[in-house]
């Protein structure tokens, strides 16, 4: 499974590009990292799948919903990530 959590200390920017979403039929993933950014420092890698945002399951979120959720975490961002592609919920 190798899922893991990262907690990034705010404020934004977090230093990563989010890709995917339910509306795109692709699970949320990290498509790009700002070198030396907070996400990169916390050990996030390109291609990591996002399982949860702030504890909430990210599998059912559209792109914009996920985006909004991440934005809503001001001081601290908690992401649940996995190296293996999660099973998509239809």
């Amino acid at each position, binding site marked *: 499974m190798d899922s893991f959590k990262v907690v990034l200390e705010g404020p*934004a*920017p*977090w230093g*990563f*590009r*989010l*890709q*995917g*979403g339910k*509306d*795109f*039929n*692709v*699970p949320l*993933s990290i*498509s*790009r990292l700002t070198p030396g950014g907070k996400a990169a420092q916390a050990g996030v890698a*390109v*291609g990591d799948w996002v399982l949860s945002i702030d504890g909430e399951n990210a599998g059912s979120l559209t*792109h*914009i919903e996920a*985006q*909004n959720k*991440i*934005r809503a975490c001001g001081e601290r961002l908690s992401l649940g990530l996995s190296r293996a*592609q999660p099973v*998509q919920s239809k």
Partner: protein
Amino acid sequence: MNQIEPGVQYNYVYDEDEYMIQEEEWDRDLLLDPAWEKQQRKTFTAWCNSHLRKAGTQIENIEEDFRNGLKLMLLLEVISGERLPKPDRGKMRFHKIANVNKALDYIASKGVKLVSIGAEGERCEIVDGNVKMTLGMIWTIILRFAIQDISVEETSAKEGLLLWCQRKTAPYRNVNIQNFHTSWKDGLGLCALIHRHRPDLIDYSKLNKDDPIGNINLAMEIAEKHLDIPKMLDAEDIVNTPKPDERAIMTYVSCFYHAFAGAEQAETAANRICKVLAVNQENERLMEEYERLASELLEWIRRTIPWLENRTPEKTMQAMQKKLEDFRDYRRKHKPPKVQEKCQLEINFNTLQTKLRISNRPAFMPSEGKMVSDIAGAWQRLEQAEKGYEEWLLNEIRRLERLEHLAEKFRQKASTHETWAYGKEQILLQKDYESASLTEVRALLRKHEAFESDLAAHQDRVEQIAAIAQELNELDYHDAVNVNDRCQKICDQWDRLGTLTQKRREALERMEKLLETIDQLHLEFAKRAAPFNNWMEGAMEDLQDMFIVHSIEEIQSLITAHEQFKATLPEADGERQSIMAIQNEVEKVIQSYNIRISSSNPYSTVTMDELRTKWDKVKQLVPIRDQSLQEELARQHANERLRRQFAAQANAIGPWIQNKMEEIARSSIQITGALEDQMNQLKQYEHNIINYKNNIDKLEGDHQLIQEALVFDNKHTNYTMEHIRVGWELLLTTIARTINEVETQILTRDAKGITQEQMNEFRASFNHFDRRKNGLMDHEDFRACLISMGYDLGEAEFARIMTLVDPNGQGTVTFQSFIDFMTRETADTDTAEQVIASFRILASDKPYILAEELRRELPPDQAQYCIKRMPAYSGPGSVPGALDYAAFSSALYGESDL
């Protein structure tokens, strides 16, 4: 020479020769001391007379009266007690001389050496009346006959006499006899002598030394009066003469010696006699004593032996004990003294014999029957008898003890046995087995076995009882009659018990056998009835079994089974009948042996009635089943027909669909020709398919029938309705999709401006890398494809691309996705940046946009859409109502930088 020991008072060294020599001197002188002559004359005369008076004669004148020798011979005869030769009675001188000679010869024959008057001449002197010669001769006689034989302590004659005087006067202090002259002058010597022997005659203490004459006279007086010793001395002469005549003194003193010693001798003799007599008397006494004791003892033995030989037995132990006690008493109290007596007797006998022997008497010979051997013999017999008696007593006691013990034992054993045997006969006569079950009978048999072994164990005891009774008889028990009676009763009863036991055993065994037989039958019945019952139940079940069959074969097999079953019925019936027979058998046995038990079968709950009813039921069910089966068979046939029908159709439809699918697939893969052509073809296909639908419907109809008939399988076709349906639907969707695909391709082509050739190129590439030729590429195919096109991709990039071409993660890349990907690179597409740029223009270069701006620039719907979806802008320079168009835009493309 007589040597005198020193310490003796007197020094006496005379010997015969010496004073004879002295006399010779006097003879030579022919002189005699006148005093002495006087004394001698008096004394000797008196002395001779003291002897001659025994012969009835006297002498007056010593020199005259002996001249004829007659009185001399007489004197000698009197003194010696011997007869001299007959004197000559003549008066002639030679007669006288002859007589004197006879006298002197006699004296000489007595061992006296007559030195001075041996010669003839001297004898003549005597005849002639020579005083000196006569006195000398008398003195010789006196010496020889009165003094010579004196023996005192081995001292003889003169010395002996002197010793005697000294001994006898030793206790008198004032008397000291040393000689025969001066020592006698005071007269105390004589008195002492008298007093010594006869204290009753003289009171010595009153005597006085100073009255010698008186003393002498007194002594002579007493001697004459009491001792028969004539006076021979003259007191004045003795006293007045300085040295009295020794011979006269000696003569007179010798008379004393003879008187006392004689008395002593007499006394000694008397003593000896008394001793001897006493010994004799003692011996006689002992002999008498012996005889008496012997008699008594023998008498006692004689009395006792019969008592010891008495063998009359007593009846009781007590009596015997008493006898034993008596015997003990005898041994402890009565016999020991007798033993003592016997011992004493023996001692006495021995003592007596010894005494007799040492006193020189003949041995004692006890009278007849009282001899030592007799006593010993009798004693031995006594002891034998004793031993025998004791033995007998002990044996008797033992015997009685044994008898009593045996009798007691008998009583005990008999009692024990009688107690045991009591009631046993009753028990054995019970008929409790007649209404008992098999287990009960078996239990009774066990009990009986136990009883039998108990009985056997008691056999011993009965035998013992009989043996004891026998022994009591042999030992002559006094109450043997009762014992025998009881013994007999016991034995009789024993025999009866034996018989009854045997009978009971037989009855029990017989009963057991019968019950066993019945039990066996019951068991048999149970063993067979149960399976038969089960079989019937099973049969009933089977016959009523609801069956569901789906094929003719199935129903056929059921029918066959049923036929087979029917075939077994006769056999079953046979079994039924045998089972019934068993039951009948049981009934019969019970009946005929009149056994009082229930005939119910403990092993089986199945009854005959049950069996009967079930059998009937089975018989009933068979034809019913027949019928059902036949009906089913018909039904199955009908179903089969339906199946065939369906199959026929399906077998046609299936392939047709398959065919069409292939056609469509082929069409979509082909490269040559325009998309429009493809489209037309596909449309054609579509049309065909639509027309074909009737067949499907028809099939559906048949399928319904089949399902209504509950037919679930169809081996005539591999196609199920579902298959066909699915296939049909797939066909429909495939054709639609394919058409759609083509449409899309047309759109894409038009949108992206791809020429047909490009399309064909894409197609060719795709087909080339579609290894499996299924219209799809997997990831490896795609990667290979990319590489072939010159893309040098890292993992991450490839992954990203994969997400684009295979957004659903299906692992495949469709032709459409492929084209999209390929054309993306070359097409002029709207990107998120362009959209953001567009929004910025609308937002007048602000990093955010306001709602009113959106409403102003965009159509209402889109504006509302944007307003609704745009997040609030929270960047620098934010104002209320600011919307983040950048986030929104990137989100539209599925990408946002955060």
